[in-house]
Structure formats: C-alpha cells, structure tokens
C-alpha cells in the first residue's frame, strides 16, 4: 500500500498551489481516518451496546458506575446517577478505569516462581496445579499443629471480602488476618472507639453543615471518601441558599486549602493543640452544648470514682493547659486566630471537625490517637453528634452472621496464639499493625504461608522495601493475589491473579452518609485474562482442605456467599443487580438518650465499659485497658503525659527522627487526586499524564518547597535536588509553591515504583522510603510524619 503522509504531500506539491493541496488533502486523510477506525478490533457502527452497573474500586469512596459495553468491550464509564455517594459523577481515577482493565501489564494467569525470589523469573501454570499447591501448603501448616503460622495481609477489602478473609483465616486456625488500616484510617477509628464507643469512621452530614473544620490529610484530595466530600462540599457551597464555610488546617495549602475560605498553615503534628486551644475558648466563652456535656458525656467535669479518688475532667484539663496563647506557641497559629476559629465553630452551628480519614499528618508518633480524640472532642463540645448537619454513625445493612466454625481443635488452639503484628499484645490498643509485621517476623515470629491480597507493603509502608524483603526470606511460601507484578508480588512464590474490579462479583457497603446501603459490583465484561475472583479462590481452597475447614464453607462460590449474606438488605438479588445498589435512608435522627442512641450511636463497640450512652471525654475504655499506669508502662508506651491526662485528649509533641538543625524540613508525603492511594493507579497512563497538575508536572515526582526556603538555600524552581533523611536519600526536582510552610516539604505519593508496569516503573521517587520505620507503641499505627529531611542541590 502506498503510504503518504501529509508532510510528504506538502513537500511534494511544494505548497505552490494551496487550493490543489486542499482538494487532494480532502480525500486522502479521510480514508486514513477510516482505516484507523476499522483497525479497532470489533468496531462496527451498529455494534451491540449495553450498560452494566458496577462499583468503582480505585479509592475507598466506592462510587457507583455504569459501564458502556460495545461488542463486549468496555469503552466508557459514567457515574451511576442512582448512587448517593457520587450522584452520577466520577473522578479521574474512575474515568480511567478502562486502562486498568485493558492494561498490558496485567498478570494474565497463575504464575510460579522459577528463579531466585525476587529475580523476576516466572512460569505460567494452570489453576488446578496452582490451587492444589496452595492447598497442600495450608494442609501442611495445619498438620504441623501451628496453623497460626499462616498469615493473611490485606489492603482495601470491600463488603463481604473483609469478613471472608477473617473467617477464612480463623477456619484455617490463624488469628493473623492483618489489615493495612494501621497505615491510614486506624487513628480515626480508634479515637472514635475510645470516645464515642464506635470502632469505625464516622459520616459527616455536610449537606446541612454550616461550618467545616478539616484536620489532617487534604479533604478534597486524600480523604477516605473523597467523592463523598466533593459531593457534600459542592452542595454545602452552592446547592442551597446559605453558603457554608470551610476551614482547612494543613501545613500545605493544596487543592483543599485553595478552595477553602480559610487556610490555617499549622506546624505539622500539632493539630491536637489547636483543637484543644479552640476547646478552651469554646468552654470559657460558654459556647458548649450544655445539654450534651451535662447529660450525655462522661468526664467533662472533674469526677470521683467508686473508691473516692478524684479524677480530672476534660474541662479543667483544657482550661488549665490550653489557653490560646500557649497553643499559639505550639501550633504557630496566632492566638487571635484560634479564638476566632473557636468562636465561628461554636456559633455557626451545625459545625463539624472533620478527620478526612487517611492519617496523613495525624500520625506523628504516639500523638496520632490523641490528636484524633481532641478533634472529635470538638464535635462533642458543640453537640454535633448525630444531629442534622453533624457527625453521623455509619450504619450497615443487616446481614446474617457468619456460621459457627465447626469443631476443630487444631484451629481452635491456633486462633488463641499471639498475632504476628503484635496487635493486642505488643501494641495493646491495636487491632492491626501492618507495618510492624516484618520486624516481628525478623524477631522470630514464624510464618510459613503468607497470603497478600491487595497489599503492596514493600511500597506503601514507611521505609518498607528492605525490611519486608528481609522478612520474606524467613517465610516459606508467599502467595500474592495481585493483578500486577508490583514490588511485593515480585517476592512471591506463586501468583494467583485476581480479576480487576470490573470483571468480578463483589458487594460494597455504601459508607459516608450514615444510613445503610449496599452496592453491587458485577462483571462489566467477561474476564480479559485467565484470572479468578479471590473470593472464589478462598472458598475453593477451603473445599480442597476438606474436614472442618471445608465444612465451614457451605457455599459453592463467592456469588453464592454474597446472595446469602445480602438476603436481608431489603432488595432482591435481581433488583440489586439491575439497579446496582440499594439504600435505606432513615426516617428520623435518634434523640439523645433514646434506644437507638444507646444501641447505635454511642457505645456500640465498647468492650470493657458500659454501653450507657455517654460520650467519653475521659476514656473509660482506655483506662480499663491501661489498668496500671505506672511510670514504666507509660515510658514503654511512649506516652509523655502522666496521671489522668493519659485518658483525656491532650497534646503530645512529635518525636521527630533527625536533628532539627541538620534536617530542617518535615517530610510530608501527600496523596494526589490523580494517582490516588493504590499502586495500580500509577500504571494508568492518562493518570500519569495529569498527575502533577498542581505544579504543571507530568510523569514524575517533584519536591514542593516554599519560595522563602528555596531562596534561603539558593535553590531555583526546577533545580535538581537531593532530599535526604537519616534513612536514605532521593533525587528529584524542586518546585516552588506558594501555600506551604517554610519548615515543611512535600513529595507526592505513588511515584517511585520499582515494578508494577511500564508506566509506573522507575519514575520519580517514593517519599516513604525516606521515612523512619516507626510504630506507635500504644496503637500500632504507622508513624507517617515523624521524619525530618534536608534538601540540597544535586550536581
């Protein structure tokens, strides 16, 4: 075929006769266009076309989506207008999801390692062989009498998947189902548990809120449910006659600060002091909700216990220690501003103090938990709990309970073992301590078989890579369910690739609005590769093990399990599949002290203290746990407070790694809207191309620095620089941004991959590699903002 490009053509005609050029150009490229379109496989103008509802899984928002499928190919996704979280909208990640489905770097079928671990040599094997291999390993672990040597690390699990993973581990006989929550949302969950008695993130009724005060990670970029915040935010601003006010507390302006009415550039790690300084003003100005603090709260005033011992209450603690001048010294926020913020927060009700969910700057050292408690105490002070426009407890659809596990002495003993992450033992308050697992394995906790589901700990843990690699050396058999050969999957022995979320059955609880709802993820297209739903794989494995393990799984497959668990949600399976979701909005808000208040709003998840409907300013739950608050315990737990203060929200200074004189900047690793929190997003090319919107960068990392710091260091915009901490250094380019404290520098998250795929690999730097590997001794939370760095020009 004669191939002629436009440029050749113009050269040939020499541009002598423009009209001739035009008339010839009219015919040729037209054919060319048609050829390109005909080259698209299966393309046909009268193609068969239909819409399939599903749910996104590229961040924890869980937006409903409708897939447009043409001739069996997914060509476009739209937000489901029925879904109450996104109301028809879809963010860049969701829009780019076809690039996940059709990603050329996906693992196409089960792989077995043939070379050295991590050497990247694999052979494809069939599912039958792969599954019998795994089943044999699991049987061996059980036969050895130590089923606790099986561990299951998991990341984002939706709907029944979390329950299934935990149930599966218990059926095998292991307590070691470890969630990555300790990397992000656990601070909020634990703080709500210790104060309100609800072990969960809370929902914010932004549509009716007048005043939003957001702490920690960027509300509109890095929140737990960014889309929920975006929908609520937009409605609060312009969806109603009265425009709500938004205040962002963050050392970095970011998109949220730029969009807010006011940005408070706080010194990193001092959020608790600001919240308590505001509490001081609210209390001393008489702006507290008297009904709430007098009748529905515990430990607001000083109190006397049964033994006649006097205890300090929240009010006197705050009034004695956190006046605006003192807190101004700590936070760098002027006392006048603190007083004004408090006044606005106390009077412009309903107001909410929001923790976007992802820990971000809240996890410094032990202060992560107390900071979250202090922030939530603000909500209690102004009576925003479970009120219209306030903070709502998230309800879930009713599901039948998981079956009683059959009698199984081996498993029963294994389940009693200490956890591999030290949650509940080394870290007394922790439910999960994901980032501590490698250290515990290296210290001698034996793990024979390790499962990794949606987990890439080598990339996502502070200073993770080398520690995990070393720990993996002590694990006999590692199975990854990853769709991509990410940093961690590269160290596996066997990969059983999961479907992408667009190819599988899965449910998804609708979180962020308070009321219960469930959405259904269903295959939008036939699986592209020889992959399997991990839910099905787990059930299959259980069946292969036979005996009591098989007996615990009466379902033929994961969809059957879903149908059984979702039988009581209020809609039939057919309705769920057709609409893609079912919601049960409430008819009214429970009154304080009413039965639903007692059973749902306050105290629901308390384990050791009465579910009496009292919000704990003084955490009785924490007091129960730390019976002996002797000096040694407190020192061991890294708590600097003494006496009753330990059980009250208070400010604990961050224990920074790195001397301030040598390392003048606090390193803040920020999550971007585009690249998001999950590894796979980094291998989606259009997301890479828009990733650096805030500084006009693409396909790379950058270090954000304030102009005044750059001037001081003699750096210019776009200079190559080294960022160095006591733990490592990385080379990138510096970008000057307005709207950043001069003692903080930012690196965007989700660049710097050493694996995953062609678009993610060897691009930029991973800021987490520079961080100190810290775990808060009390809570098991990863310390995310505990590291100082220095910056200097790279030659």
């Amino acid at each position, binding site marked *: 075929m004669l191939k002629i*490009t436009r*440029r050749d053509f*113009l050269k040939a005609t020499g541009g002598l006769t423009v009209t001739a050029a*035009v008339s010839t*150009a*009219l*015919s040729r*490229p*037209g054919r060319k*266009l*048609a050829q390109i*379109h005909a080259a*698209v496989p299966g*393309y046909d*103008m009268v193609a068969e076309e239909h819409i399939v509802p599903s749910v996104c899984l590229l961040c924890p928002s869980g937006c409903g989506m409708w897939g447009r499928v*043409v001739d069996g190919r997914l*060509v*476009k996704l*739209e*937000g489901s207008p029925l879904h109450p979280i996104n109301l*028809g*909208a*879809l*963010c*860049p*990640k*969701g*829009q*780019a999801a*076809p690039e996940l489905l*059709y990603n050329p770097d996906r693992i196409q079928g089960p792989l077995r390692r043939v070379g050295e671990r991590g050497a990247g040599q694999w052979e494809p094997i069939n599912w039958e062989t792969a599954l019998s291999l795994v089943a044999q390993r699991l049987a061996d672990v059980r036969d050895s009498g130590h089923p606790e040597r099986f561990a299951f690390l998991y990341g984002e699990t939706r709907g029944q998947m979390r329950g299934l993973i935990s149930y599966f581990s218990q059926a095998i006989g292991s307590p070691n189902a470890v969630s990555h929550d300790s990397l992000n949302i656990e601070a909020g969950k634990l703080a709500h548990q210790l104060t309100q008695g609800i072990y969960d993130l809370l929902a914010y009724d932004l549509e009716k809120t007048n005043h939003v005060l957001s702490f920690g990670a960027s509300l*509109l970029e890095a929140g737990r449910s960014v889309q929920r915040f975006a*929908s609520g935010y*937009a409605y609060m*601003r*312009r969806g109603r006659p009265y425009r709500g006010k938004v205040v962002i507390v963050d050392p970095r302006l970011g*998109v949220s600060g*730029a969009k807010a*009415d006011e*940005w408070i550039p706080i010194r990193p790690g001092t959020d608790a002091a600001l919240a308590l300084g505001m509490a001081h003003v609210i209390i001393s100005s008489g702006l507290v909700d008297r009904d709430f603090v007098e009748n529905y709260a515990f430990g607001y005033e000083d109190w006397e216990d049964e033994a006649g011992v006097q205890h300090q209450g929240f009010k006197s603690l705050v009034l004695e220690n956190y006046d605006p001048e003192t807190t101004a010294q700590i936070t760098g926020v002027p006392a006048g501003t603190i007083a004004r913020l408090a006044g606005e927060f106390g009077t412009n009700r309903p107001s909410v103090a929001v923790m976007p969910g992802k820990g971000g700057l809240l996890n410094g050292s032990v202060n992560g938990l107390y900071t979250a408690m202090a922030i939530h105490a603000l909500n209690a002070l102004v009576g925003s709990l479970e009120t219209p426009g306030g903070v709502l407890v998230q309800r879930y659809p009713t599901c039948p309970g998981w079956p009683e596990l059959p009698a199984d002495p081996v498993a029963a003993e294994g389940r009693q073992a200490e956890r591999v992450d030290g949650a509940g033992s080394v870290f007394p308050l922790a439910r999960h301590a994901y980032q501590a697992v490698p250290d515990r394995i290296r210290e001698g906790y034996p793990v024979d078989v390790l499962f990794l589901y949606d987990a890439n700990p080598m990339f996502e843990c502070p200073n993770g890579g080398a520690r995990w690699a070393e720990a993996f050396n002590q694990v006999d058999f590692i199975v990854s369910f990853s769709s991509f050969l990410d940093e961690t999957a590269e160290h596996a022995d066997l990969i059983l690739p999961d479907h992408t979320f667009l190819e599988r059955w899965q449910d998804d609880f609708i979180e962020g609005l308070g009321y219960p709802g469930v959405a259904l993820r269903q295959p939008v297209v036939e699986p592209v590769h020889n992959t399997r739903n991990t839910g099905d794989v787990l059930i299959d494995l259980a069946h292969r093990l036979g005996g009591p393990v098989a007996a615990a799984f009466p379902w033929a497959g994961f969809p059957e399990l879903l149908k059984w668990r979702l039988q009581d949600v209020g809609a039939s399976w057919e309705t769920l599949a057709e609409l893609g979701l079912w919601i049960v909005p409430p008819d009214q808000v429970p009154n304080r002290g009413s039965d639903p208040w007692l059973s749902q709003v306050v105290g629901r998840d308390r384990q050791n203290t009465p579910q009496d409907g009292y919000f704990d300013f003084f955490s009785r739950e924490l007091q129960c746990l730390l019976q002996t608050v002797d000096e040694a315990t407190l020192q061991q737990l890294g708590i600097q407070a003494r006496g009753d203060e330990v059980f009250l929200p208070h400010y604990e200074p961050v224990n920074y790694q790195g001397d301030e004189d040598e390392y003048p900047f606090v390193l803040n690793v920020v999550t971007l*809207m585009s690249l998001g929190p999950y590894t796979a997003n980094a291998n989606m*090319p*259009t997301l*890479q*191309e*828009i990733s650096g*919107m805030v500084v*006009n960068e*693409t*396909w790379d990392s950058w270090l954000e620095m304030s*102009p*005044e710091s750059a*001037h001081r260091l003699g750096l210019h*915009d776009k200079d190559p620089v080294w960022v160095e901490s006591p733990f490592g250094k990385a080379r990138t380019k510096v970008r*000057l941004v*307005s*709207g950043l*404290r*001069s003692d903080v520098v930012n690196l965007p998250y989700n660049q710097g991959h050493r694996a995953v795929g062609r*678009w993610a690999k060897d691009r930029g730097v991973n800021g987490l590699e520079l961080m100190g590997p810290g775990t808060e001794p009390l809570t098991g939370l990863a310390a995310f903002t505990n590291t100082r760095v220095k910056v200097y020009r790279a030659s």
Partner: protein
Amino acid sequence: MPRWAMVIDLDKCVACQGCSIACRQENNTPAVGPDQAAMGRALRWNDVVPLPLNAEEVSEISGEHATATVRYLTRPCMHCDNPPCIKVCPVQATYVDEEGLVRQDYNRCIGCRFCTVACPYGVRYFNWEEPPWSPELARHINPDYVSENGSLEGPAVRPKGVVEKCTFCIHRLQKARQQAETEGREFRAEDYRPACVETCTAQARFFGDMEDPNSTVSYLARSTRAFRILEEVGTHPKVIYLREG
C-alpha cells in the same frame, strides 16, 4: 437554533481533574508519554490548571505563606463566538457551525498549526505522532464518530499531523438527536451533555442552550459572579465561569 454554552462554577469545582480524564476516555485522546509530554505535546482538550501558572511569579510571592492564593481553572475549548483560530486557518479547516460550536475538519487540516498559536486559550493541540495506542488499550477506544462532508469528527481517532480540540462532545449531540427521533419526540437541550459535564464530581459544570433565556446556563450567565476568560480580547467565549466565594 440552539447556541450551546457551558457554565463552570469555580466555587463548586474541587479541581479533581475528572473532566480531564472523562474527556480523554470519551474522545480517544491517549496519553502521549513522558517524553512528548515534557515537550508540551500532551493532548489536553480539557485541562485543569493552577493559577498563577508562572513559576517565577510564584517565587516572587513574599514570605507570608498565609497570604498565598492559588486558583484552579478547568479549561475546555471556549467555543468563541468570534474565534481567532478560524481567521488564521489557511484552508478553512476550522469554522463555527450554525449552533455555535467551533469545529475542526481533520480532512482539510494541513497541520500548519497557525490556529494553535492564534488561540489565546491554548486549547488546540497538534498531533505530533501517530496516536500511541497499545493494542491492549486500543480495546477501550470509543467507536463513536460524527461524519460530515466526508470527514470524521468527534472521538474518531485522529491521524498524525492534524490539529484537534474539544468538540463539546458533538457526537453526543448527534446521538441525542437520533435518540429523540427514535423515541418519536422532540429533541430537548437537556438531552445533550458533554462527558465532562456528566462526570463532574462537584456538579460544577452546566451545559445548555444560551438562546433560551430560561435555560440554566442563561440564568447562571447573568449571575454577578459570572466572568469569561480574556473577555477583553473580544473572543466572546461561550464558556462562562462563576468565580469563587
């Protein structure tokens, strides 16, 4: 005859870039890759940009971090009533159609790029290379196109050497008209929404007929918050912004 216009409320916009990617997926604009993007050759029909744009300008901002102001602007083609791009085109490949859309005839375009320079908004993009679709990713190519005068418009994959731009998702207009016809009813302006409007996470974008004084866009365009970018150069853009606050 309708006159299509878009209103973007910057007070609702959260600069999420959903519009950017919705546009790329709907209109088959692939990522061009790091090297091409570094040369400024990415195809950004609908981009979100921070203001001030200029890094030098940023570095001159004084030491008071608390006074920093950054604004984010999402920027499709303005579909000007008086577009500078069409005046410089030597081959009349770009024109305003009777409904006010600034169209691009890829058949006529000779790739001289005069229009990319003439456009004060920088929303016209030249295809320096063949569109870099990997065979796998090509499976999600949107098969829609608009065929007129032998030229394929809309999401039709553009060849190397032509200039392309936001079409206000003109294929959606055609599909909406066909749909109305199939259903035996009159076409309504609300039937037609570009992909960026549909996906907007904060529902900050509005689209409709400016000729209709009762349409949402007409109503919002009369707001005291309304402004157009570079209004003073006389382009008469049909993308109208509502300022923050």
